């Protein structure tokens, strides 16, 4: 069980280092970096490589933004398997729903309760 924390730490850390390298060496803006990582997660899942990574690293693979691309693709592919072509669209948000809905709901609640501090960057 202890090892699951170690693997989560290492794999999560490595994904963040890839992001840092894209920003520093690749001269990408944070928005470009995150978009790149999301696409990478989607492509990796298409090749069937992201699920094994989640199995190995747990939250080290589900917490970085790459998992967002993975979850979108995963839902789309699972529905497409069941219902054919239309499933690609209808299944898209099936797995990812919690990340998006949490961000929207907590964004609204945050706006209700917190005062602006000038921290948009």
């Amino acid at each position: 069980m202890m090892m699951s924390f170690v693997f989560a730490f290492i794999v999560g850390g490595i994904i963040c280092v890839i992001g840092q390298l894209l920003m520093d060496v690749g001269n990408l803006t944070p928005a470009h970096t995150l978009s790149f990582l999301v696409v990478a997660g989607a492509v990796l899942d298409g090749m069937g490589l992201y699920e094994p990574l989640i199995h190995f690293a747990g939250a080290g693979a589900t917490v970085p933004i790459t998992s967002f691309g993975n979850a979108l693709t995963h839902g789309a592919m699972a529905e497409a398997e069941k219902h054919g072509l239309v499933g690609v669209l209808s299944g898209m948000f099936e797995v990812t729903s919690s990340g998006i809905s949490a961000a929207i709901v907590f964004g609204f609640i945050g706006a209700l309760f917190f005062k602006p501090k000038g921290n948009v960057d």
Partner: protein
Amino acid sequence: MEKEQYQQLEQQVTPKPPYLKNIVKAFFVGGIICTIGQAVSLFYMTFFNFTEQTAGNPTVATMVFFAMILTGLGLYKKIGQFGGAGSAVPVTGFGNAVISAAIEHKSEGYVLGVGGNLFKLAGSVVLFGVVSAFFVALIKYILVTLGVVSW
């Protein structure tokens, strides 16, 4: 001055980022956030009926909740200044982008301000995530239909 000359000069003058220092910081901050995520996952697997594969969903939601608290208190910005990509790449960074945009635009009202700007910073992530997922799933569907690969 020619445009190319200017770009050369700009590159010479711009200080190089401290690569190694940034990498170490990103690794540790990102690693720690994922370790906290692992603890949350374990909580959902132990006390609720989630498996390793499905625990990611509630974990992400919980991490976004943490991001709301930290963003609201103005602490996530400080973590971001230290951790660089280590704080931007985890979903907490996505949450921070959405939530900070919501809070900052509150003064313009809830409909035009909060509603209109919610995905101002994080919209590109949603856009490219959805579009790439669409094409990846579509390609896979075509390949399966052609009998090249199986689901």
